[in-house]
Structure formats: C-alpha cells, structure tokens
C-alpha cells in the first residue's frame, strides 16, 4: 500500500487562539463564567436581603467596594457581548418566512435592539432611577 495519509494535529486546549473568528466565539462562551458568578452574587444578595438591614448593607458595601465594582464592570461588558452576539445569531436560528419572502435578518435584529431598549428603560423606571 502506497497510501500514507497525513493527519494534522489540532490542539484540544489552544485551538481557538489560531483564528480571530474562534476568539470571538470563545469570548461569548466565556461570558457564561461571569453570568454564573453574577447569579451567585444575586442569590447571596437575596439571602442578605432576607436576613435584615445589616446583612443587606454588608452586601451593598461589598458590591460597591473597588473589587465589587471592577467585577461588575466586567460582568457588564460580558453581558453586552452576550446580548449583541445573541441578537446577531437570532435570524439564523429563527428564520421567519412570510409567503415567498424570508424576513430580512436586519429587521429581526433591529426589532430585538428595539425591544432591548424598551425593556431596559422600563426596568430603570421601575427601579426608580430615572
């Protein structure tokens, strides 16, 4: 047999460094780490709230500490990454056909951004900030 196919190895741990496309993907995958921690922080906050004023202000103090702020800025950035990449993918995952026309992706994405803006404003109003 003269055949001797050559197999190129792909590193199982560093493959995503090879292409900017993969780096972007990893960036939104990693957002989950921050979301997870944030969920933890929230749950702790709820417990603290249940435990009374002191516990709650302790939690607030932690959140507003430099480390807390840095962490939240990071989470915020990653949540924006998550939102934008998620919206970008929606037309692919959810193709809408009206008769012979496929609803243009930009329209769907635009609608999502619109809803996002409305939701954010409403939440801010409810929270009494604005």
């Amino acid at each position, binding site marked *: *047999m*003269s*055949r*001797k196919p050559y197999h190129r190895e792909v590193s199982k741990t560093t493959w995503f460094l090879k292409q900017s496309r993969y780096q972007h993907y990893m960036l939104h995958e990693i957002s989950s780490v921050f979301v997870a921690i944030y969920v933890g922080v929230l749950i702790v906050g709820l417990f603290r709230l249940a435990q009374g004023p002191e516990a709650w202000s302790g939690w607030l103090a932690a959140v507003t500490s430099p480390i807390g702020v840095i962490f939240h800025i990071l989470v915020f950035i990653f949540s924006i990454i998550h939102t934008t990449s998620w919206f970008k993918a929606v037309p692919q995952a959810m193709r809408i056909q009206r008769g012979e026309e496929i609803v243009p992706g930009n329209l769907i994405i635009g609608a999502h951004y619109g809803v996002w803006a409305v939701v954010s404003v409403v939440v801010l109003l409810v929270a009494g900030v604005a």
Partner: protein
Amino acid sequence: MKVVNTDIVIIGAGGAGLRAAIAVAEADPTLNIALVSKVYPMRSHTCAAEGGAAGVVKESDSLDYHFNDTVSGGDWLTDQDAVELFVNEIPKELTQLEHWGCPWSREDTGKVAVRPFGGMKIMRTWYAADKTGFHMLHTLFQTSLKYSSIRRFDEFYTTDLMIDDGVCRGCTAIEMRSGEMTLFLGKTVIICSGGAGRIFPFTTNGAIKTGDGMAMAYRAGVPLKDMEFVQYHPTGLPGSGILLTEGCRGEGGLLVNKDGYRYLQDYDLGPPDPWPRLKAMELGPRDRLSQAFYHEQKKGRTIPSKWGDVVHLDMRHLGEKKINERLPLVRDLSRSYVGADPVTDLVPVRPVVHYMMGGIHTDINAATPMSGLYAAGECACVSINGANRLGSNSLGELLVFGARAGRHAVEYVKTVGTLEGDARIEKQAGDAESRIKSLFKRTGGKQRVAALRRDMNMTLEEGCGIYRDENSLIDTCTRIADVRARYRDVRLEDKSNVYNTDLYQTLELGAMIEVAQTVAISALQRKESRGAHQRLDFTARDDENYLKHTMAFYNPNGDPRIDYADVTITKSQPAARVYGGAAA
C-alpha cells in the same frame, strides 16, 4: 491486481450514470452494480448545466411539437424513432425526478414552471433557477444512496474495456488514491463518461470532460458517430469560457453588436420584437447564433476585448428582482469573472465550445454494436441531437437513455447466464496494467503533456471551428496526426502512485487525441454544411449524399476509417429549417 466481481459495471457517475444505476437497482435489486467514476459523483459535469431540461407538460404543448423542434433543430440528421421515444419518455423522467425531490422552480399554483429555450416552439423547459443540472445531479446522487445494490467506486480512473470473444465483460480502473489497478469483472458495462469539450481550448466544459469513455469504446472497435458536429454555445464569458445559460435569453436577454444593434435580424432570425419571440432572434438555435457571430466579426461589428472579440448580452431591462430570482448564478459569475453586473451593465460574450453531438454509436436501447456494452449521456450518440442539439435536450437525454441503458442491461444480463473466460480477461487486465507501468518506466520521453495538449487544442480551434474548409481541415488532420505520433513519446514526470494527476492528465490527453482525430477526419469527409458543421467550401446542405451518420472506426496506426450509416426517418421529411418570423 484487485478484482471486483459484479454484475453490471457503470463507468461514470454523472447524470446518465446515476440514472442508469438507479434504473438497474429498481429493475432488479439482486444485481450487483459497480459505479465507477474518476470523480466523486457530485463533481461530475452535469452539475454545471444551468438552463433546464425540456419535456412536454403544458396543455398548449404537444409531443409532436417537441418532436418537430428537435428534428428540425438537428437539421434532419436525428434518428426519428429515437426522438419520438425521447419526447414520449422525458416528461415521465422529469416527473420521476420531481418525486425524488428535485427542487424545480414552480408556478404559483404549485405546478412546475417552464421557460422558453432556443429553437423550441413552445415554453417547455423545466428549470431549477439557473442551477438545473446541479440540482438534478445532487437529487440523483442522493437518491442513489437509498439502494444498497449500488456500490460506488469513487475516484477510480477507468483505463480499458475488457473484451472477451467480442463481448464486453468489464473494465480496468486505477484507484487514484493508491495507484492500484483494479479489475471490474461483470456481465455488462454501461459507459456514461460524458463529453469531450476539453479537446478545444475555449470551452464551457470542466476539466474532467476529456472523452475517456468515447476513446475506450472506440479503441475497442465501436464506432464513434457524427463526431464532426461540435456545438458552439453563443454566450460564453470571454477569457474563462464560463457559460451564461440560454436561460438569459429565454428570460428576455438581447444580443447586440458594437453599435447596440440586434444583429441577429440580419441573419434570417428577425423580426426583432422587444419581447422574446419563440424560435426567433435570441431564441434561435445555437448553431445559427454562433454562425451569426462569426459573420459579425468578419464585418468588423464585434467589440474587441483583451480576450478576443465579443458581442454584448443585454439583460438590464429584466430588472434586479427577476435576475436575482431566475439567474442568480449568472449574475454571480459575470460580476466575478468579467466585472459586469447584468442588472446595470452589458455583459461581454462570445461563442464557446459546449457540447459534442456525436459519440459512441448506440441504438434506441442504448446498446452499442458490441454485446454487453451500453452507452448513454453525452458520450453516446443515439442520435436525438443530429447536427445540432437544442438547448435543454441533453439533460433529458441523459435521463431517458440512462434509464433505458440500465433497464436493457438488466434484460441482457438475464439472457447471458454464466460466462466463461475470466482467466483470459485477467490476462487482458494484466496487459492493461503493464501498459500503464511502461509509462512509468519510460525514460527520456521528450514530449510534454501541456505542450501536446496546447497543440491539439489550437489546431482544432483554428481548423475545425464554427466554419471549416478543406484546407483548414487538411491542416488540422495533419497536425493532429503529428500530435498523436508525438504522444507515443510523452514523458511522465511524476512517478508516484498516490493521486498522481500527472498520470491521469496524460491518459486523458491520450483519449482526447483519439477523439480529436475523429472530429477532424469526420469533418473533412463531410462535404456539406449542416447544423453545427459549416463548410465555407460546401455551403449548402446535401441530402442526396450526406443525409447519413458518419461512423469513425479506430485504426491503431493511422487515420480512422470512415463509413456511413442511414438516418432513420419516420414522419418528418427533410425540409428547410425555418426560424424567425416565418417559423410562427
């Protein structure tokens, strides 16, 4: 040598080969099929067909109309029994393909849509946007996966037919990835190896269309029929030779010369209606349109470009929506390759070699004169195309005759019982293998594949193009004979076994040279003008002497022997071909 025992060997897995394989599998699931192809089935050149496949379905149409269009389109060189059978069977074949999932374009009612095509009196060309062949090929390939009796041998290059006592019993093929010679031993062979447009330098045909099957049958003693009829398609992109489908004109595209004038009206194809009139102007037959280009060029009314003279295809009035919906590939190709967007620009085009009307001589059952050997698709000549094929008839042809080849091969296998002589065939296969080995061993060969190929290409283009004459043809024949002699001293530069494309190109060149020789000699001997064969020295059709099929027989040491066979005429007597306003 590896031996594959089977019942039916099919060489080629394009539209015709796949259709034949499915026909066999459906007719008799117990028969083993070896489907041998030098490329993966979906790479076969059927995928390049854009425009569509003709078949009568609409109320206003009739089988007789399709028959008449095809016979007169072929300048009465068609065999009318074959055409009749063809027009009868094609609607069923196209419907069958629909049932198998082919994404035909549709009318609002859900029925299949049809579009006008050159030389057709009525709109009857089924299409799948402008990727008809692609969708047909993939539908056939994917459907073929249902049948467990079809065993594929992808990327096996067939070199020779195995013939014992005048009966075809199989073939030898090289597994391209290992270089290993394999003997396919069966009871019958169907050749579906496609056309040979690559013998010309400027062609719409892909790299694989090198006439291998034609040459194999020819070398085995089966005649090649009507090889002088080579179709030029009027609208190829200059430079690359990429085709812009006749569908462009079917949808309303116009051909204009350097003055913006619709020159076809000067060649008995008028009146120049602004709408597409069937069988007139841009919807005339391909031979006439390509010939008109030649004359415009002689009159200096074409447009010079860096890739040679062109005329313009004007589709701007069709509008972006229609172009995107019906001709998306055309738009993509013209933008990419010549930087012209059909929506806003004139697209430069010129005639380009497209299709071989001729091929392996078969009867209406796709049987060749040799027992056990069938042929179908572009490699075969039944003949339904005569002197000029109408656009959209060949996709139909490969279905109808591919299926017939399959079914008749099954019948044939049932009659032959067990065959003797396997040992003799193995010896033959050994000889075939040593011939290849000797190519490897040859040292000091002086001839280069690329150079020989270029010489053959240029000779054919110069002497055997849209118009030919005695002098040009004699010159071409001499030069091809010379190329053929030099080929014996060709040098193989790559001596390896694994995927040696140098070897396959060398073998393909060998096949092309044989085919090219039959084209030139057949053309030289036909002293008349008919369809795609136009002689400057014999400008009229001569039914008295040449209402006949040319038969070219192999001669290992010289020019092919030319003989003639009768044309079958049933209900349509030869008459003048009429296009333009008078055709209505």
